[in-house]
């Protein structure tokens, strides 16, 4: 019975916040999916974040104070994300949280952080409305409005005679549904003919029916909005059945997971990218070699975005020190969280993704997007995405 009294009491009396200094190293929370089937993305995010921690601390952290990443696994579900956030907020006392992996998890967990006045930076949440959850929520993963028309233009530069286009998209994935809308607009703007639209599912792997329909329609370009596993299988089957025209893929294709799925059949696929390891900017030129040294391969977009998120938080921490004239490690945690959030939003950052701007809502504007073409090595296993010239 006593426990109920305690519980009931705590419902009425707001918890008194004790002033506690942040301490050194400065704890930054990473809440991504390290188990269940989300781990496919979560593992890449963890790798990117670890590289960021190493590089930042080697350069002296935040004006001499090192940072420490605190990892909490969210699993693949909403309850897991909430639990991970709660742990980071009240037990690990992090100054900011980077995560979660899925937009659906963001809708569940971000309001919790927002209420606790802890800044959240979303590394991979592309669904509409994530940045608008609350004033403490921002994201660095951009919807693909600009890159789709660019990718088409580059494809037309390769083959100017394209007339008929087949469009394919995974209709049970929100990102791909919105991306295909942009692609279809762009195709019409280029004066091309959409010969057919094929809907697929991200869970699907056997596309023989769709492929034979495309082959029968005599198209010279296929534009796909799918994820790596399903899209890779479809590319493979298109090529195996003798389709020789152009293939343009959306940002879902921007993953090294494409290479094992379609092997040498991937070669030549044009990919619209929010990030490319070949991007030529100072931040990326510093990031890629360290990543390669630690993990023996090019960073994936998820890794680069996780790195970017950590960088955004650290840049903002430096900004706070500069403006307040206090060492952040000596500031009170709650006070720092608020100041940090104010520094995160409405700012510009130099990152491996190029220059990005976060507006007052925490919504990202990304200046540069990339268009690449997949090249698979002769062993048929390893590959790379080569930037197409402007």
């Amino acid at each position, binding site marked *: 019975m006593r426990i109920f009294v305690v*519980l009931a009491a705590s419902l009425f009396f707001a918890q008194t916040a004790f002033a506690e200094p942040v301490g050194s190293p400065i704890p930054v929370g990473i809440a991504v999916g390290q188990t269940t089937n989300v781990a496919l993305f979560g593992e890449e995010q963890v790798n990117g974040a670890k590289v960021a921690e190493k590089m930042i601390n080697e350069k002296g952290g935040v004006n001499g104070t090192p940072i420490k990443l605190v990892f909490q696994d969210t699993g693949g*579900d909403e309850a897991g994300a*909430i639990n991970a956030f*709660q742990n980071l907020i009240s037990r690990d006392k992090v100054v900011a949280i980077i995560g979660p992996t899925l937009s659906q998890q963001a*809708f569940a967990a971000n309001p919790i952080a927002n209420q606790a006045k802890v800044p959240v930076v979303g590394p991979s949440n592309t669904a509409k409305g994530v940045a608008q959850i609350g004033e403490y929520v921002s994201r660095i993963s951009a919807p693909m409005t600009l890159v789709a028309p660019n990718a088409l233009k580059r494809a037309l530069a390769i083959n100017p005679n394209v007339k008929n286009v087949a469009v394919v998209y995974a209709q049970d994935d929100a990102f791909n549904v919105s991306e295909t809308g942009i692609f279809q607009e762009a195709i019409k703007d280029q004066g091309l003919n959409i010969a057919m639209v094929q809907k697929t599912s991200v869970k699907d792997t056997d596309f023989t029916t769709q492929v034979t329909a495309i082959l029968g329609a005599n198209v010279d370009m296929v534009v796909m909005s799918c994820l790596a596993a399903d899209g890779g299988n479809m590319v493979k089957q298109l090529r195996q059945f003798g389709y020789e025209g152009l293939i343009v893929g959306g940002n879902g294709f921007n993953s090294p997971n494409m290479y094992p799925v379609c092997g040498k059949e991937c070669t030549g696929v044009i990919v619209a990218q929010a990030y490319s390891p070949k991007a030529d900017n100072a931040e990326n030129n510093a990031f890629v070699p360290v990543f390669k040294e630690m993990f023996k391969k090019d960073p994936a977009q998820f890794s680069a975005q996780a790195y970017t998120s950590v960088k955004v938080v650290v840049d903002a921490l430096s900004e706070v020190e500069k403006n307040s004239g206090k060492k952040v490690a000596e500031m009170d945690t709650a006070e720092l969280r608020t100041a940090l959030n104010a520094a995160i939003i409405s700012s510009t950052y130099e990152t491996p993704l190029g220059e990005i701007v976060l507006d007052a809502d925490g919504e990202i504007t990304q200046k540069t997007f990339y268009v690449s073409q997949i090249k698979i090595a002769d062993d048929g296993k390893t590959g790379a995405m080569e930037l197409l010239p402007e």
Partner: protein
Amino acid sequence: MFLDNYGFLMVAIIQQALLGMSLWYPLMAGQLSLASIGFYSMGGYIAAIMGTSPLFAAWRETLGPALYPVEWLIAMLASVLLGLLVGIPALRLRGIYLALATIAFVQVLNVVVLVLDVTGGAVGLFGIPQPFEKRIAYLWFFGPLLIVMLLFSWRLTRTVAGRSFMAIREDELAAQAMGISTTYEKVRAFVIGCGLAGVVGAMSAPFLNTWNARQSSFDASVACLAYVLIGGARSIWGPLLGAILLVALPEVLRPLKDARLIMNGIVLVVACIYLPQGIAGLLASLRRKASGVA
């Protein structure tokens, strides 16, 4: 501080215990159903749609906080109706068939909500209005429901209906011979569970802030069954005890990082082998020993 950190977890335990209870009723009549999670999902969608859709803006305005009980009521009625629709044909079957039919029901429901517009497709619904600020305050939703359901279960074991359920569990043919209308009783037990799952879903949509098709995964169905079996299928406390152990476990195991789900699996297996009557059975035998009866 403790409540800030574990408030969500504590309420989640009660929420999951209630879901486990919704399987406990059909199981009391010997029927293994895995449908609860489907009704939970549907209840959640009802609350999420009523909380966010512009169609219900007028309702939200006039009802104010009274909207929540209205959501529960509608979710319960819808679940009971759908439960009858699914239950009457499916419960003519015996043994493992009902379990499989209910798995199929949940899978089909999942595909349907992914394709519909009103359910928000793959992203689901979000920005659901919140009655409380802190997660722990959701105890005001789930706590009273748990107490009511525990009292209901306790009464049920002492009424004719409850005894008929148990008679069917022990021997369906004999129960039939005794003049119990077995299909009627089985449907009754099933539908009680469906209604409860629907209400829990409607309470959970604001609790989780968002609702989507992944709420009714197969893993979640099985988790509910595990609460009941590991807690003790024959005691009214079983689902609660099972949920306390199994919901808290992955959180307690957090320091193990990558290996925590491996440990979770090991605990499931070990509990099945060494606690065949569940935690409730273990507690009962300890009590018997303590009082010197055994």
